[in-house]
């Protein structure tokens, strides 16, 4: 199978869906040349640097029968448009009693590790999860990104796509043929029996690297990527934890009120899953600090393979210090 990166996968998703549906508009502050050449300046619009204006315009377009993709680039820029995204896009379907549909796709880049410091590095999806009315997708590879974006472009609700900066250029097998990935369907990337690792976005890579190494040590790890946070495929996680009895959630976002906290609360709140637990669930998350610039501090602030392995040892009841001494 051919391999493409997330950037290409995202472009193909938009091209395919814009060909299917002419009542579609794309807005971004930069110029997406391929889209502009194919669909023209009426539908592919360069905006001023004024996030509230175009995030809001997407709502008005949606309420008037058009589907809009807004590429905000950095997720931190979305905070400039919080009024339109949180107060309006998220609430408007509900507040007006469901009388209109609001198909909007907001795309934004997340994550640390790019040396961007605090105002260009963040993983803010937990905040968005806390505002009812937004669907949230969190692809960890080019295949999922394309399939989820295509579904988002047929969805009748506002969708926010959080795309990790360090995944943009990573090559991944993506078929030429058309496919869609439904929301709320987790992907069990690796089967295992001892520990369930739920990993989000780029942390899937760290989780898989940890699982590979742990396998050498005789620990069998199941790796689950939820792919969408709203809706969340709880059943896939419950099913896995019932089997393994152990849970570690790996998320680059800050710890407080995070997706990891929510997933652990769901697991411990479900009686049959709770009864199956052999150890206290653990979370490996970003630290509760703004992302610092200097590489040693930046690396320290986010989870990596070693931190994931330590958490697995802990839920396995193994002494971390011993393991560290051995390595």
């Amino acid at each position, binding site marked *: 199978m051919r391999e493409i990166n997330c950037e290409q996968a995202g472009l193909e998703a938009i091209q395919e869906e814009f060909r299917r549906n002419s009542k579609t*508009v794309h807005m971004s502050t930069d110029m997406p040349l391929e889209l502009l050449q194919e669909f023209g300046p*009426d*539908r592919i*619009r360069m*905006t*001023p640097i*004024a996030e*509230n*204006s*175009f*995030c*809001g*315009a*997407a*709502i*008005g*377009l*949606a*309420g*008037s*029968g*058009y589907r*809009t993709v807004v590429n905000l680039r950095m997720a931190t820029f979305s905070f400039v448009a919080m*009024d*339109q995204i949180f*107060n*309006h896009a998220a609430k*408007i*379907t*509900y*507040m*007006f*009693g*469901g*009388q*209109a*549909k*609001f198909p909007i796709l907001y795309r934004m880049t997340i994550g640390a590790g790019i040396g961007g410091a605090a105002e260009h590095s963040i993983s803010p999806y937990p905040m968005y999860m806390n505002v*009812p*009315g937004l*669907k949230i997708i969190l692809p960890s590879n080019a295949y999922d990104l394309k399939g989820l974006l295509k579904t988002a472009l047929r969805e*009748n*609700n506002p969708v926010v796509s959080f795309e990790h900066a360090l995944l943009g250029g990573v090559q991944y097998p993506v078929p030429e043929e058309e496919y869609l990935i439904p929301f709320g369907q987790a992907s069990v990337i690796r089967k295992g029996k001892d520990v369930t690792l739920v990993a989000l976005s780029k942390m899937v890579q760290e989780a898989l690297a940890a699982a590979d190494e742990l396998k050498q040590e005789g620990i069998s790890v199941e790796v689950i990527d939820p792919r969408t946070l709203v809706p969340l495929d709880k059943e896939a996680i419950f099913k896995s934890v019932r089997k393994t009895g152990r849970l570690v959630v790996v998320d680059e976002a800050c710890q407080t009120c995070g997706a990891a906290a929510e997933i652990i609360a769901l697991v411990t709140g479900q009686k049959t899953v709770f009864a199956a637990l052999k150890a206290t669930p653990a979370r490996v998350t970003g630290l509760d600090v703004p992302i610092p610039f200097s590489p040693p501090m930046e690396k320290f602030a986010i989870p990596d393979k070693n931190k994931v392995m330590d958490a697995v040892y802990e839920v396995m009841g193994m002494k971390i210090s011993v393991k560290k001494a051995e390595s």
Partner: protein
Amino acid sequence: MAISPKEQTALYTTMQTIRLFEERLVKEFLENKISGFVHSYIGEEAIAAGVLAHFKKTDRIVSHHRGHGHCIAKGADMKRMMAEIYGRKTGYCKGKGGSMHIADFSIGMLGADGIVGAGLPISLGAALSAQLDGQNKIAAVFFGDGACQEGEFHEALNLASIWKLPLLFVCENNQYGVNTSYRYSLGAQEITRMPEAYHIQNKSVDGNDVEVVYEAAARAVEYLRNGQGPYFLECFTYRWHKHYLSNSLPDLRPQEELEEWKKKCPVTAYENKLRQAGVLTQTRIDAIKTRILEHVEEAVRFALDSPLPAPQDALEDVFSK
């Protein structure tokens, strides 16, 4: 510009409908029959009536927290409006929005937004859809002097200007944001200086004279339908009630100023004008009022006879299917 007696009667009827609807709300509110925040449009009726007389069902508008007048002038059903204000299941938003959030997408009323200035970006999308549809459709956004202090206002002027959107900005300058005068809070002082800076055609008019508003809006709408770009209409007016209906909210505006503006009542002034011009007799005026009062009564009855939502209805409509 000659306005036919038929148009004049229609303008009067729209204004009087808004007035009598709003007066009934004041009564219901003071008797504790409705709850929440109700922002009265009394005193500003000439703007909604004069502007929206030029709008078709396929043209779209975006309104704000003081939005009942825009709904009525755009052709919304008073029964479903009243039911929404009463929090009933039969209301426009099934009781989920209330007075501040009435919308009727079927008539191009894209909703009232409760965040000052927030309707402006949304209206850009409505106007862009009109431009893309390419059938001379237009859009309008209503907002006040308070919204002109928001960043979203400037962003909207800028985007409408560079994209030449068929969008009518209607600034209802009632001079106060709650109790704060725009003379204090707006550095530009003259509101039309701001659209001017963005190269948007603009005009400031007496918002209490419905024919003045009607004529200015006619020219603005023609400009929009010709695809010449956005237009900004400032209508100078005054609100008779407090920011929202309340027993506890203070009204710190000079009371003599309020009394002066009450003398410039847009509804009474127009009624007198049409009577003196022989367009409407007193008998006809009485008949119009009686008919409107019957409709308002019918709307209140419809609301009261409608069921309240079930508590668990709160779980519906978070997402569209």
